[in-house]
């Protein structure tokens, strides 16, 4: 009994270690950035030259979501802050939060104040904030301090009038300022969205973040999931864990599994999430990762939500969907609750089914279908009308409906027959 508890405690510690590693972007992207031609080194070179040579610069980091753009940027910035502690200050903006110019300037002013221990006034107007920012840029330039602006979700800043971008880039044109503007975005064509005057002030430097090659991915997985030898866990447990892990990783089935997953979601971020799920399913009493964990994680990611919804429907709801399908086949482009009810009644009259219910019960079933998003309203304009009169459309194809009916337990045979007609 005591040994089991101990083993569980050990595996819990190992689990904790692995989970915190997988949630820490710094740990994940550092090994990928070690080679000299990686994006990390290029970015570091660009920013450090701007800092040392006191010039302005701008750069875009582009790549699909989860490829580590912000993580690599943070690594670079933390290294540079250690190297030049007094010469850099970082302002971080996010397009989801600060796409409005007022908001953005307020946030810039607030971060500048926090950095330099000044008092920030919440009631400062837009003009005050922008003058403050320009003054700070000038002062920092004179003091040989570089301000680095990180604009996350850059495509949101490129919506609307792009006033903020223009004022930032314009302020950088003056002789005294030393600033670096780094834009991070998932849209690869974000520089096409910029206005002409903004684009002319923007240097067309871009860094593309692509997913690593297959060998790199395999090496990465092994590196992430192996327990370090010098942790507080006992040596023989760690050795056995790593040994089993190696055997698992070289297994053909595991490679197939990873390939399947990566064919849908090919970025490091998605892979890390998948590994996190698999690690969480680790059996604590055994204490080692097994192929079953990864299989469960894969199957939970490969769900088919609409089929699941159909499986959850009651028989009456299936009837209604089959009625709608038949109406579609009869070339009726839009239908509402009452037309479905007439079709339902005609089915009952011709086939004498036992499942005939009153209108209000059917209305509840209809609303349940709306809630599951198996059907939806055609337009949003009819809010005044009640649910029964608004036209709806089916959101699943007839193939999916057919498949759902087949996999439904105790599906009435009549429905399958009706679908086949």
């Amino acid at each position, binding site marked *: 009994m005591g040994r089991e508890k101990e083993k569980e405690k050990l595996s819990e510690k190992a689990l*904790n270690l692995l*989970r915190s590693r997988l949630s820490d972007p710094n740990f994940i992207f550092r090994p990928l950035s070690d080679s000299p031609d990686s994006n990390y080194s290029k970015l570091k070179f660009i920013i450090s030259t701007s800092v040392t040579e006191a010039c302005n610069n701008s750069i875009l980091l582009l790549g699909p979501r989860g490829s580590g753009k912000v993580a690599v940027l943070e690594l670079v910035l933390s290294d540079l802050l250690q190297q030049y502690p007094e010469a850099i200050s970082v302002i971080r903006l996010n397009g989801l939060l600060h796409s*409005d110019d007022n908001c953005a300037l307020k*946030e810039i002013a607030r971060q500048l104040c926090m950095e330099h221990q000044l008092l920030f006034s919440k009631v400062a107007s837009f003009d005050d904030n922008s003058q403050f920012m320009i003054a700070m840029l000038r002062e920092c330039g004179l003091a040989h301090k570089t301000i680095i602006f990180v604009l996350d979700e850059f495509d949101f800043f490129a919506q609307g009038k792009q006033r903020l971008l223009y004022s930032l880039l314009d302020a950088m044109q003056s002789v005294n300022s030393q600033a670096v503007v780094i834009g991070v975005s998932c849209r690869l064509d974000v520089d096409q969205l910029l206005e002409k005057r903004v684009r002319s002030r923007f240097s067309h430097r871009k860094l593309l973040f692509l997913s690593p090659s297959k060998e790199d991915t395999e090496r990465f997985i092994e590196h992430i999931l192996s327990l370090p030898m010098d942790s507080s866990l006992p040596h023989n447990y760690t050795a056995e864990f790593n040994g089993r892990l190696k055997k698992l990783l070289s297994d053909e089935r595991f490679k197939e599994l990873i390939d399947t997953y990566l064919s849908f979601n090919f970025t490091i*971020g998605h892979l890390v999430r998948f590994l996190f799920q698999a690690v969480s399913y680790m059996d604590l009493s055994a204490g080692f990762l097994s192929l079953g964990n990864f299989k469960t994680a894969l199957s939970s990611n490969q*769900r088919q939500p609409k089929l699941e919804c159909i499986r959850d429907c009651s028989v009456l709801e299936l009837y209604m969907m089959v009625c709608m399908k038949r109406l579609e086949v009869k070339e009726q482009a*839009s239908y509402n609750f*009452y037309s479905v009810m007439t079709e339902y009644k005609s089915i009952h009259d011709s086939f004498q089914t036992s499942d005939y219910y009153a209108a*209000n019960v059917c209305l509840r079933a209809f609303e349940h279908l709306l809630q599951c998003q198996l059907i939806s309203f055609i337009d949003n304009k009819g809010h005044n009308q009640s649910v029964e009169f608004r*036209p709806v459309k089916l959101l699943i194809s007839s193939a999916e409906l057919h498949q759902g009916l087949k996999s439904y337990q105790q599906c009435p045979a009549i429905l399958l027959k009706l679908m086949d007609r």
Partner: protein
Amino acid sequence: MATEESPQVTRRATRSYSASNTAIESTNLPESYKPTINDLGFRQQPLRLEDLLSSFPGRRSQILELLRLLGPLNSPMFPILVYGGPSTGKTSVTLQVFRHLNRPFIYSSCITCYSPRILFESILNQLLFHRKDSGHSYSSVKRCERPSDFVNYLREALENVLTNLKGNSGKVSSKMSGRPDGTMVYLVFDNLERIRDWDKSSTILPFLFNLNDILKMPEVGLIFISNTSPDTYYLNIGYVEPIPLYFPDYTEDDLRHIFMANQTNSRLYASFLDVVLRPFCRVTRQVDELAAAFSSLFKKYSEPLSDKEVAPNEEMKRRLFSHIRPHIASALNETFQVRSQPLLKAETNEETKKTNSSRMLGIREDFDKIDFHMSTSAKYLLISAFLASRNPATLDASLFDSTGVSDSRKRKRNCAYWKNFKYSPRACYNLTLEYMGI
């Protein structure tokens, strides 16, 4: 199970009635209560795992999966999306899991917080231990409308709470002092599908799904609960999706377990379920609707029995079945409406499970309760007001325009539009009359 709720009062009750009615319990806390960090945990006795698993029949694998994804104490997590049909137990399972784990969490539902400002302020109130009371004229601790302000305030509040928790974890064992465990805070967002109907949904939804990346605090865990599946949330900016956790609807066996719990005469109820469960399951499988239907039907079923405690044998079962049989068909066609006032006190738990879909029938019930006299002209006025509020403005213009139709295109479009509906204004009028019981 969880917190008990005071019995709901219907809309018709006057203020003096609710003040004098001693049946209404006072709310749990007096007015001047100041929340503390202990309120971030569940304020009741922690559950053991066996109790948790046994109180949710049919949900064993989901509970275990949720426990695995949340992980051991102080372990960071990726955001989770719990989804499934209505009344499948998502919210209750999540809350009871937190009760079992005794970890601090913040719960906010997008039904009660129906705009971004209210949502943000409710979360901040809970984190800053602020309770809205008459002293501050029911205002929140901070005014927060925009996501940018929310993120700044949230960071500060979370840092305070986390230092508090870290300080506590070094001291007395938390089981004795009733404090929540650990140094992580979990944010639970319930009824996420409501956000899709908000005005600002195109900014709020991406913001919430990316909140994990924006905050960059590994001590914060996010859990989203939704009635609709993840594919209804696909946004064009994309995000790394939260880990999905699916709650399927209950099977018939699970429904049987659920209804058999807490029954005084289990064998009688078992024979009742044998009769009614299968036909009702063809119509709906939601627990709240079935519960409302079964409670009234069970009363009818046990009517002929003089002794309610008896365990029925085959002969009795057959007789009871023939007694109840004509009622089943009619009960199937009745909507699963919640009873009105007289039964309300006995069935308070059904009231809370009433879904918004019963509003159509709710109207019918309210009109049953009109006990003042209306003249015929007043009734006609009421009908016309109802029709006028339902018709779209273009239809009114085309029907009642005295100079004939102003735009021939409008007429063509209106005709085509209404043709498919198979009703004319006259039919709608008749329908309304029927519906209102006049």
